């Protein structure tokens, strides 16, 4: 039975929240940090600032320059990765248990006294721009979310490319980075979970010492507005001349993290596009051999989220595959799921549940998520019982509430426009970009603030 293990939760006077969870299968300690704000705190029209700030945290902090910081982490065999997410800046770190003091020292330095040096900033920014080009060259499917969310959410923070675009990154200056750090990183934003082979008392003393004197930020993050409703059907065709295959993404606004019927949602998505025998994979892979795989999923944030379907097919089959995917969604909405399907999804989801909560790092991430969204330990503990209670009525309800009418979806297709444009004509009004364009939407960087 999966249950949240015993742990300790501390709130410091400066608003920081710290959670300590001892777990001793292996001599490692894992740390998960969330700092509220994330890419949501990027200046409007300038996505990528939070992402650069996160990356700069480990490029020199405290008494160490970038190289000395990397030396300190890797010299102990540790890892330290900071990144931006839509609503938080995250840091993940893992060290040998004997080095937990060093881990906390480095973490405190990175968060409290990063150097944010102009030289490191320039190099990181230029490199990030080149990374986007490299992804376009070899793994363009990685960019579907950036194109799709811009199309779906426009200027709402959920529409921003978290890691920036080539053009927005080029426009970011060291001043933007320092200003983001000043306004967005501080004690009351901090949620830190330490899990693993801990000495509980020693760890508590150390985290208090590391963070109790960190000041708060000047102001809390503004509450996130609800994302806009589904826009009318549109297709964004991103031209990749010479591509042998098309990557497609079908998206619609989804439900938020506190959606009450999440167990039913998970079961229905498992059946629709969440596992090998799903309806989608059956259509696009198992029955037709059109694609190596097709899947669907929900990303749920504090103010909303998205539902997406994604797959890839040989260029001449693009239209056919998109039609099959949309028909599968239509069928799910029309026919629902059978009791037998529901039983199978329930067994599958329950059977896989513990595998995602196996290591100290897994628990650190899970507890951080639960705390971040204010869900409580019951979110984890009650999940099996909630799964057990899902019946066909509950499944019907989530299908109606959360699985969009195919007509309310927007489409992104990355492929050889000259060969697929005509196949897409029947799906709705289409706009075109080139894969080499330096942004992810036709709206240019520098537009006014989101409403």
């Amino acid at each position, binding site marked *: 039975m999966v249950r949240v293990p015993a742990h300790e939760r501390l709130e410091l006077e400066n608003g920081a929240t710290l959670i300590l969870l001892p777990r001793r299968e292996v001599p490692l300690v894992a740390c998960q940090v969330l700092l509220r704000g994330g890419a949501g705190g990027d200046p409007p029209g300038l996505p990528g600032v939070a992402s650069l700030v996160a990356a700069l945290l480990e490029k020199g902090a405290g008494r160490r320059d970038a190289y000395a910081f990397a030396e300190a982490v890797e010299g102990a065999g540790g890892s330290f990765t900071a990144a931006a997410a839509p609503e938080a800046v995250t840091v993940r770190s893992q060290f040998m248990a004997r080095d937990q003091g060093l881990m906390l020292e480095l973490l405190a330095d990175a968060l409290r006294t990063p150097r944010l040096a102009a030289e490191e900033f320039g190099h990181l920014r230029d490199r990030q721009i080149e990374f986007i080009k490299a992804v376009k060259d070899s793994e363009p499917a990685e960019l579907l979310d950036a194109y799709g969310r811009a199309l779906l959410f426009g200027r709402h923070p959920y529409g921003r490319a978290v890691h920036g675009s080539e053009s927005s990154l080029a426009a970011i200056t060291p001043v933007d980075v320092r200003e983001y750090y000043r306004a967005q990183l501080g004690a009351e934003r901090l949620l830190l979970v330490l899990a693993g082979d801990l000495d509980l008392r020693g760890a508590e003393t150390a985290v208090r010492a590391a963070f109790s004197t960190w000041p708060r930020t000047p102001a809390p993050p503004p509450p996130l507005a609800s994302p806009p409703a589904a826009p009318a059907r549109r297709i964004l065709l991103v031209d990749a001349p010479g591509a042998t295959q098309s990557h497609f993404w079908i998206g619609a606004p989804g439900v938020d993290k506190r959606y009450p019927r999440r167990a039913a949602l998970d079961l229905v998505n498992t059946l629709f596009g969440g*596992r090998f025998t799903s309806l989608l994979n059956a259509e696009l892979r198992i029955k037709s051999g059109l694609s190596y795989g097709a899947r669907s999923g929900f990303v749920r944030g504090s103010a909303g989220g998205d539902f997406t379907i994604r797959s890839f097919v040989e260029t001449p089959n693009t239209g056919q595959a998109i039609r099959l995917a949309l028909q599968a969604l239509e069928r799910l909405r029309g026919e629902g799921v059978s009791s037998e399907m529901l039983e199978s999804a329930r067994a599958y989801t329950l059977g896989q549940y513990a595998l995602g909560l196996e290591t100290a790092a897994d628990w650190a991430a899970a507890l951080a998520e639960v705390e971040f969204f204010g869900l409580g330990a019951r979110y984890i503990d009650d999940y099996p019982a909630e799964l057990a209670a899902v019946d066909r009525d509950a499944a019907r309800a989530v299908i109606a509430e959360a699985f969009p009418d195919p007509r309310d979806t927007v489409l992104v297709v990355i492929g050889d426009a000259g060969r697929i444009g005509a196949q897409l004509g029947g799906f709705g009004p289409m706009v075109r970009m080139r894969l080499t364009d330096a942004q992810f939407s036709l709206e240019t960087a520098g537009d006014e603030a989101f409403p």
Partner: protein
Amino acid sequence: MKRTALARSAVYCPAEPAGREQVHARRLANGMQIIVWPVHHIPNVALNLWVRAGSRNERPGITGLAHFFEHMMFNGTRARAPGEFDRLMEAQGGANNAFTSDDVTVYEDWFPASALELVLALEADRVANLAFAPELIESERGVVASERRLRVEDNNHGLLAEQVQAAAFTTHPYRFPTIGWPDDIRAWRLEDLQRFHRTYYAPNNLTLTLAGDVDPDEALDLVRRYFEPIAAQAPPLPVAEREPPQLAERRVRMRRKVQTPLVQCAYKAPAAADERASAIHLLMSVLMEGDASRLHRALVEERRLAIEVGGHWQEGFDPGLLWVSLTLPQDADPDHALAVLDAQLARVIAQGVTQAELERARNLAMVGFWKRLATIDGKAHLLGEYAVFHDRWAALFDAPARLAAVSREELRATAATIFVASRRTVGILASSGATAGAGR
């Protein structure tokens, strides 16, 4: 216990991981090897079925067959219709996957302990009774072609690596791409599949590992019940081809519509079981693992000639390749980056590595090892890896001691034997110029 904030792990102290005494290993009468590691922190089990067959066991005309087989193993048996394998496993809470390499094909299942018997029955069934429905062979050819487009044809790293690998070997079947040449994917016949299955999916060519919430005696009884009736076959013929020594550097130069050029250097390197294995791992870590590694520092941070440095050692049954790969920024000169890479490697050969670099690599390797041991999946996989490539599963428990024993001089000597220009194949993928200037 708790060290002060300034304490550093300067001294490396190997600790043997616990568990060796808990592991149960048997060989069935038909030659199949079974290894069980009971651990009970979650109510689940990870199963690995290692088949000693990969693209190394192919010949011209049937390249990609081992990988295709991996796909066909999900497509029905004489006892169960196509799709039943996944349908039954998922309905009892199990998930599965598989992968194929130059050397092996590995089937993986993750499931609640209650599904153990079903999973063993399903695995034994597809080993003993695989069916080859012609219409499924055709449909699966399409799936593999899609996978090939994803990994090779529309992925520059995969495309260049395929050409480099084909040029690096003149004789040994390591020259074949595991996914297969497109004409072969379209051409192989039912008889090719049947022969391959009979030869390589014989129990005497398999190792099954289980890690997780099982009683070892009960698990072994169940394995015996389902697998022991499967008849042994004559052992597969050994791979006879020996790659002749490479006497001159080979170069592959491609031009494509790309923004970021690539450089790949593939050096001839020892087989997995070579006694220098730990030294090779540590050497690669010194050179390429993390922002403090030598090549990252020199090429990415200081000279800014690359945006990324990576590498891997193809650890197989036979001597293979050790890869060093660079992704360059737009308009960068691949030959210049290669020259700087060469100078760095020459420095390691001439001056060796520092003690701090060696300790850093050892610590990184130890954390990596513990991370794998933290999951039942990692345990099942490590048991299989050591049993198959090192002929001794228990050797995994000596990994920390082996890492501790490697000296700086061994790293230098290993670098000197591997990083020899005449024994490498260099691949360069440069822009054809069509998209220069970000398409503007």
